[in-house]
């Protein structure tokens, strides 16, 4: 116990005195327990700056580009479906606001739930369920893909831990990767879905769909779908990242043999 606290002392003590402590004096540290090594510049505790974390996770995404694409593809599909449905609603409300009664009948015929009194359009219950289910399936898909990615990188994580990485660093790297994947994937999905929705709108209702639609609303829908996608991506990586972060380095290295 006494030894351990001496060790802690060495840890703590080295932090604030970095500036006025040259490598010569570092050698004759407290209790002679400091190693005979140049300690001049390397004096702080274990760190990994945010910028560096972003750099590392971006690199590992880039190197595994194809793999990441597969992880992201389910997200792209689910988010584009969400965006498609949301923008469809935007188009329909635009038409309804402008066209009044005639538009309401046309929209009802096209399968929208038109609220006669309030003049609003809402998702059909069935549609709501399908959107919900697609997002659920997508999350499960992300968890699956990320768990595989963690398993694939067992030894890499173990090595990082042997080199002194903390659990929180591993967690951060995985979360950052997921956030980047989520942002890129759901942005692509949202843009894709809304474009497709606008196209089908124009085909079904003519150019009136584009004229009367609230572009701010469309932008809002794209934003909402993107946000949802990012959240799902982070949700999906949470468990795999925890598994990775909690892993003992010894198991990680053994896993390869």
């Amino acid at each position: 116990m006494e030894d351990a606290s001496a060790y802690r002392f060495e840890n703590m003590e080295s932090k604030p005195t970095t500036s006025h402590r040259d490598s010569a004096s570092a050698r004759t540290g407290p209790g002679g327990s400091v190693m005979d090594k140049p300690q001049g510049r390397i004096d702080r505790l274990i760190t990994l700056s945010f910028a560096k974390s972003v750099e590392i996770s971006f690199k590992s995404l880039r190197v595994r580009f194809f793999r990441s694409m597969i992880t992201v593809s389910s997200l792209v599909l689910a988010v584009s479906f969400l965006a498609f449905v949301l923008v469809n609603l935007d188009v329909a409300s635009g038409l309804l606001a402008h066209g009044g009664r005639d538009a309401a009948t046309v929209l009802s015929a096209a399968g929208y739930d038109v609220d006669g009194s309030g003049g609003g359009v809402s998702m059909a219950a069935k549609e709501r369920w399908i959107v919900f289910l697609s997002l659920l399936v997508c999350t499960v898909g992300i968890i699956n893909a990320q768990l595989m990615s963690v398993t694939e990188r067992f030894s890499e994580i173990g090595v990082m831990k042997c080199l002194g990485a903390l659990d929180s660093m591993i967690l951060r790297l995985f979360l950052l990767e997921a956030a980047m994947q989520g942002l890129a994937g759901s942005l692509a999905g949202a843009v894709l879905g809304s474009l497709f929705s606008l196209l089908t709108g124009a085909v079904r209702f003519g150019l009136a769909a584009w004229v009367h639609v609230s572009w701010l609303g469309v932008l809002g829908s794209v934003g909402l779908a993107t946000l949802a996608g990012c959240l799902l991506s982070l949700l999906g990586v949470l468990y795999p990242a925890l598994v990775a972060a909690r892993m003992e380095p010894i198991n990680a290295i053994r896993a390869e043999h």
Partner: protein
Amino acid sequence: MTEERRTIVRVVGVTKRFTMGKVEVRALKGVDLEIFAGEYISIMGPSGSGKSTLFNMIGGLDKPTEGKVFIDEVDISQLDAYELAWLRNRKIGYIFQTFNLIPVMSALENVTLPMTFAGMNADDAQDKGIELLKLVGLGERFQHKPLELSGGQQQRVAVARSLANDPAIVLADEPTGNLDLTTGEEIIELLRMLSQDRGVTIISATHDYKMLNVSDRVVWVRDGVVDRIERREELKITVGGIGGKDNGRAEATVHGGERG
């Protein structure tokens, strides 16, 4: 020679039990060991002797069931996660049988990663990384990814990486296990040079008899206990017998050492 030296690793009464399914396996049955700063130690023993378990204990990668492991007079079972990370980062350098470089990073990035964790600024880390790669003879190949390097070169990068934060101890787990004869010898020579020139304590778990010639002491582990510890001077007599029993390769190496 070693008497006046400082103890860097002390293993006291360490036992380790694993439960594999319903069977309890006693990997270590009470090991005491003292390793001095600057020594080159080989831990030898057949597979399943507890050699790797002992090795992992010394490296702070595994905790003993009973007993204590002190590194630099610090009981490592008392350390929390941060201090363990600090220990792995600054005090110990690891070299593995399977090299275990991070495949997505270049040789230089692999070497500088521990320095990044240690909070060294990027430029200094870069300079030191190149310097270390030059030391292991890979000065001009620092931009290569691990998969673009041969096994021996990868292990050289791993050696450079293990030295990143000037550790007191370098732990080498079967460093020559995946290498051919000549490349293995080069790595052993590199380790020997490091222990002599830089005063690094090198502890290697191995069953490569080429290691015997350069080791200051050899710890023989058998059935979870330390069978015997031999100094290099004593070794040459005993090893002849072992080399004879074993394959011709070991014999040749040992005889070569005797002549030289």
